[in-house]
């Protein structure tokens, strides 16, 4: 390892699967301007992918990056990012996951791996420090991610080996295929697993024996201990994430009336069903051990579960998080409480995004309810709400692209274009990607999800904190702190349009900084305004890397990335303002069946909020395109020229301050 590099491992590894060539570049060529991980990835993808490249083209690149702080005990420093030109939106695809793999990668000497080309037959990559091999993976092809982990640990004679792999879904180019770390943590969204499958790459295993140094060790450790003390105090008051992971939001989500039931037709589940499938009780009943990742100041959100009864008895797996509960269990009205555990395990084994499953199957079930499709379309399956066995069957059919599953494997909106019959209205998506986010009843959440450059998702700008004070013990403290963090007077008022654009901008910056540094969002002000804020993140970054920066410049790094993601989308897609809007259903239907009964989006106010959103970004509010001045201010003059050339440069903007 190069001795004067701090926090970074120092190398970017390029592996070309077409010709087997392997090259190392210096991370420092990118790190100053693009921080790390997802920031470096968008820079490389924008610069190196020609406009004619398509997602499954060998010329596409899959970029796997470990965050800057990975390898240190910084709070929540365990995230990796995988980015590529994605097969669902056709544009920027980016997904993060908790990772021991990333730790090993850094200790092996690499911050980022760039996968180029396409192997002629199934292969895997074995990185053992300096020794890198591309090996035959014919015997792994067709195996689940769990089988691949077991087999690779035996083959490489290391019972503690960490890998990332694809399952059958990735091999079969299912559009929502994901990449799984070990058994239970997914690079879930955007179809990165399908791109990995298109390259004939089954798995990457890594072992690292090196170490990471920080620039100012005393100051760095001092900051860490201070943050630890803060979390010790806060965790004593309450730590719901540690108790139940994101499933802990169950009661507050019911109270605020934003639980997806029957494909967003209703915004809460019936009380009798809630009693029956209460996920908190399920976790309590079946938990057998804890599960956590490096640095987590919340002491981990994972539990190992063992189902000792019921239809899925014998299953041992990590608990699912809220997304599976709301997007598969309640969206599809399943009555069996352990179904969420089984469905999550099956999706992880086969390597598919739980949100594609929820989106595509939810759409299909609503179409079946409305007689838009029938058993003639569904291979004879009865797609009635609550039919658990049919859902499990459909998950398999999707991942193996069989029959009706072959249509659903493209995601709900593409499936609706195949079926037609006015079924598009029931396909809830953003930029083509199946949408899990409940868009009515929480405006900052909705705005952040719908304007997301990666197509939906709530980790690239969505505001999660609006409704949370309802669940907090010291609610007044929480609100006071939130006001100062987000700079708005009403951070807890979910139904007010004012201030939401500003909150989303804050979150867009925070999420990108977190992703670059490899810090889990839940350790930061995303989930609680008292947790780690941007100043603390900047101090961790400067003491770890030795790179000096100001808070303004630190934030500007994130905005630069956001603008390049936007430009990347403009280069490869035709997205504009209309693609940043909620679905028609969300824009016109009032909420049914929840405490927000009758509430609906005010179109005029929503559009005004959108105007404000574009204005504070320096983007043209007519079409959402960045202006030349905005890009030049961010050091992206060449990008401005590119956009001008393709007629996608914004014309007017207001003066902005990030």
């Amino acid at each position: 390892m190069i001795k004067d590099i701090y926090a970074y491992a120092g190398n970017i590894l390029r592996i070309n699967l077409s010709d087997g060539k392997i090259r190392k570049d210096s991370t420092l060529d990118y790190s100053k301007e693009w921080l790390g991980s997802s920031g470096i990835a968008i820079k490389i993808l924008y610069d190196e992918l020609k406009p004619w490249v398509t997602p499954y083209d060998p010329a596409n690149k899959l970029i796997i990056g470990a965050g800057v702080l990975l390898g240190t005990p910084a709070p929540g420093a365990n995230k990796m990012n995988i980015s590529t030109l994605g097969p669902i939106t056709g544009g920027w695809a980016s997904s993060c996951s908790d990772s021991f793999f990333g730790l090993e990668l850094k200790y092996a000497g690499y911050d980022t791996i760039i996968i180029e080309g396409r192997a002629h037959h199934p292969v895997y990559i074995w990185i053992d420090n300096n020794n890198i091999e591309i090996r035959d993976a014919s015997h792994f092809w067709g195996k689940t991610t769990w089988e691949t982990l077991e087999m690779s640990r035996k083959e490489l004679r290391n019972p503690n080996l960490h890998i990332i792999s694809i399952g059958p879904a990735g091999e079969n180019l299912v559009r929502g295929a994901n990449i799984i770390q070990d058994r239970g943590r997914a690079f879930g969204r955007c179809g990165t697993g399908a791109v990995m499958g298109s390259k004939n790459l089954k798995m990457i295993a890594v072992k690292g024996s090196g170490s990471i140094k920080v620039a100012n060790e005393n100051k760095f450790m001092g900051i860490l201990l201070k943050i630890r003390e803060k979390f010790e105090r806060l965790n004593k008051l309450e730590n719901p994430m540690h108790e139940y992971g994101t499933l802990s939001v169950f009661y507050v989500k019911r109270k605020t009336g934003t639980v997806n039931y029957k494909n967003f037709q209703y915004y809460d589940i019936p009380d009798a069903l809630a009693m029956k499938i209460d996920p908190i009780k399920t976790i309590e009943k079946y938990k057998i051990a804890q599960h956590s990742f490096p640095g987590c100041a919340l002491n981990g959100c994972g539990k190992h579960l063992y189902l000792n009864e019921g239809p899925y008895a014998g299953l041992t797996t990590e608990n699912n998080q809220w997304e599976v509960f709301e997007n598969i269990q309640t969206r599809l009205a399943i009555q069996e409480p352990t179904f969420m555990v089984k469905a999550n395990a099956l999706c992880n084994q086969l390597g598919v995004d739980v949100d594609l499953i929820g989106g595509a199957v939810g759409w299909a079930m609503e179409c079946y309810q409305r007689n838009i499709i029938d058993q003639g379309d569904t291979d004879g399956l009865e797609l009635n709400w609550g039919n658990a066995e049919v859902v499990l069957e459909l998950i398999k059919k999707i991942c193996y692209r069989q029959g009706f599953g072959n249509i659903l494997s493209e995601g709900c909106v593409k499936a609706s274009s195949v079926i037609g019959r006015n079924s598009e209205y029931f396909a809830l998506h953003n930029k083509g990607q199946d949408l899990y986010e409940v868009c009515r009843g929480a405006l900052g959440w909705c705005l952040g999800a719908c304007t997301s450059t990666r197509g939906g998702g709530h980790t690239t700008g969505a505001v999660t904190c609006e409704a949370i004070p309802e669940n907090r013990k010291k609610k007044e403290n929480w609100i006071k702190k939130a006001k100062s963090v987000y700079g708005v007077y009403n951070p807890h008022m979910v139904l007010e349009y004012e201030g939401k654009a500003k909150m989303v901008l804050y979150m867009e910056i925070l999420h990108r900084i977190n992703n670059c540094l490899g810090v889990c969002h839940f350790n930061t002000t995303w989930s609680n305004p008292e947790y780690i804020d941007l100043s603390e993140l900047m101090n961790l970054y400067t003491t770890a890397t030795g790179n000096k920066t100001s808070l303004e410049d630190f934030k500007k790094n994130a905005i630069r990335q956001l603008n390049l993601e936007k430009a990347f989308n403009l280069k490869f897609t035709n997205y504009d303002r209309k693609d940043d809007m909620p679905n028609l259903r969300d824009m016109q239907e009032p909420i049914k069946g929840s405490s927000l009964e009758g509430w609906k989006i005010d179109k005029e106010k929503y559009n005004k909020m959108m105007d404000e959103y574009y204005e504070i970004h320096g983007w043209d509010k007519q079409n959402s395109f960045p202006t030349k001045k905005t890009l030049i201010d961010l050091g992206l003059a060449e990008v401005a020229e590119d956009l001008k050339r393709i007629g996608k440069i914004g014309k007017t903007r207001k003066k902005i301050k990030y």
Partner: protein
Amino acid sequence: MVFDMLDCGGCKTCELVCSFHHTKEFSHQFSSLKVLNKRNYPGYQILLVEKEDKMNIPCDGCKDIETPLCLQFCGKRDDLEKIIYRFKRAKLQ
């Protein structure tokens, strides 16, 4: 010496700070404390290194500071403290 730690989540933060105590760098390799997967069952065990060899540095209880670093960074500090105490007692015997 290996100890069961029922509530350990296997985050390995203790390993990183232990190696920092010995080498001023973060790694798995130079930690006196290793978090091991239990065989055939979910959960974790803690191995504390007793004797020095090529690959291992023994636990010195962070003798130069009041509270060992692994305890300062462990979310299940009380449980780990008991293990460290049992380890020290066993070494003395």
